[in-house]
């Protein structure tokens, strides 16, 4: 039953997009995460939902600080990519630490992002 409820919560969350209505969406994710946490087998799901909540909050902050609505609804990797492409390496580093992104993945993202931004010198140094 818990599982089902959390399904419908997260489903709602999935359909409810649009950055203006972030409040209810965050709430839905938190609820989903709690429901997952109530059963032992869904530790993974609970954690993932929790992370997603964290990610959304962070993306909102980023959108405000950069003034560009390009973060919400992208994945962790995409967020890092976007940040590096924009040249915001400090924020990218922060996402990496916050979400325990393994070095391997981070370097791939960095290479791709630098290539997209055509920052060849930076790529060379790296």
């Amino acid at each position: 039953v818990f599982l089902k409820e959390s399904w419908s919560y997260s489903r709602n969350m999935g359909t409810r997009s649009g950055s203006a209505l972030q409040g209810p969406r965050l709430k839905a994710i938190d609820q989903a995460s709690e429901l997952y946490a109530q059963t032992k087998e869904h530790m993974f799901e609970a954690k993932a939902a929790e992370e997603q909540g964290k990610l959304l909050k962070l993306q909102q902050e980023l959108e405000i600080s950069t003034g560009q609505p390009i973060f919400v609804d992208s994945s962790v990797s995409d967020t890092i990519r976007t940040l590096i492409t924009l040249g915001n390496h400090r924020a990218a580093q922060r996402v990496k630490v916050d979400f325990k992104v393994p070095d391997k993945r981070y370097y791939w993202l960095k290479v791709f992002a630098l290539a997209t931004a055509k920052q060849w010198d930076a790529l060379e140094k790296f």
Partner: protein
Amino acid sequence: MAQLPNLDNGPVNLSNLREQAQRELGEVLDSMRGKKVLVLDPQLSGPLALIAQTSLLKEHGVENLYYVDADPVQTECKNVIYLVRPRIPLMKQIVAHIEQDNGRQLQKSYSVIFMPRRTIVCEKVLDEVKAVGNVTIREFPLYFIPFDEDVLSLELERSFKETKVDGDTSSLWYMARAITKLQELYGVIPNVKGKGKAASQVSDILLRMQREQAPPLPASAKPPEIDTLILIDRQVDMVTPMCSQLTYEGVIDEFIQINNGAVEVEPSVMGAPPSNNAQVSTKKVKVPLNSSDKLYREIRDLNFGVVGQVLRQKAVSIKQDYSDVTAADNQSISDVKDFVKKLNVLPEITRHVNIAQHLSKFTTKPTFLSRLSMEQTLVEGQNYDASFTYVEEMIHRQEPIESVLRLLILLSVTNNGLPKKHYDYLRRELLHSYGFEHMFTLSNLEKAGLLIKQEAKSNWQAVKKGINLVPEENDDINPSDIAYVFSGYAPLSIRLVQWALRGEWQQSEFLRLLPGATFERFEKNQEVNIIRRETVPSTDSVPGTDARRLVILVIFIGGVTFAEISALRFLESQEGMKYDFIIATTKLVNGTTLVKSLIDDPSAS
């Protein structure tokens, strides 16, 4: 609409089936008098094109053709026929259409035709407008759609997901109904063998349907044209569809997707676009692919590596003929005629040279080659760590999720799941790379048993050895075994068919290693069958005469790939084979389309 495939030369004449479908389509269309417009479910237009041409629709008074979508149909016509799959979103759109018409005081008659049959849920949705409009509901019981002289499909895209994830078994019912309909035309199939849960479910429903038809139909008294039915649940063999197909038809499907027996390609692929037709030159060219194309029939099942050579030989031989014709002084008219006849295949050669050239752009890429060798490693079940790292890197590079999942499923299935640490790690990496919404995808994959946590040791090695999935010798050019379709891996599903034909079915040890029940039954009161069984060996002993070949209907529940079809055709062509195959399925698939059906789109629900 493209030309219909020729069905006359199959092991069983399937054109009966198509004629029946055409007749029934005519009847449902005629059920509404006068001129009418037909509004089609977009999913149905492809399959329907394999049944009927536009001329048939015109004969039955159809003036215009539309597709069901959000905008209402703009037409003066008083009669509107909707031909749809029983899907709820479509019902809602139809309701909206009718309400809009009503709002504008338009008096029209509506007819909603369900294919293959109505469902209660859908009728409920329609009830809303029934009161206001003149709506009738009918059924068009089209189940199997003949794709080629030996291929039938129900074209139910979501069948695998519905059965394995949602627990919705309606597609199994459709399959059983389809088999029953087939039996009405071709006689009751005396032997039934099957493997897997869905297979035994279909078989049970089939039995029940047969029992319910208390007085046997006159048709069932006919001597059976089909001797054996082999039912295979796709879930028994998820390895095969996840591998990259390497037959010509398979490669076409992997890279440019075959839909309803045709591919659509950029005009540039097929040579220069016709200059006099500037308007359509931007449109994709539709190339029909079926056995009516003699050359395609010859090369579709070959390993892609050989296709180039064969095409070259063909071209060279024509050139040879040409120089013969021009060189000889005293040629008779008939010589020239023969030559001209040969020239008729020229457009076909050009067509396939173009396609093959286009495909080789993909197949020579280093990424494709390294992927192939990784698939091979996985199938051989060796070097788990290397495969794990490979998949990990694919995720990190954010390669298309379908191709990542295909490999990941291979990894999971051949290892009976992933160790918990890796399982959680890769799932987290997936969510991070592709987004949280793929939570549902992961859950679907888990329910379908495709991406799971390892709980017991894998028996893949035992299965692999038991039926020789990776034969030591493999020759793609002159194959002696079905392993050529994947350049070294013999599809498990087809090995099962071979096993079933050899008669070692229920007793066999290794079949127990695979999921789902193994079963076998014979129709009683089938004296015809017994008599024929006795006569078979005697006629067989006469050399040279083509003794009556037994027709085997192989049904893949949950989808079949082109490579598997090729493998069966290869078996059929082997010397000493006394069988002809007809292949039927819920849907022609490849790994990518199968995986796509499992990726949940939250906006769709």
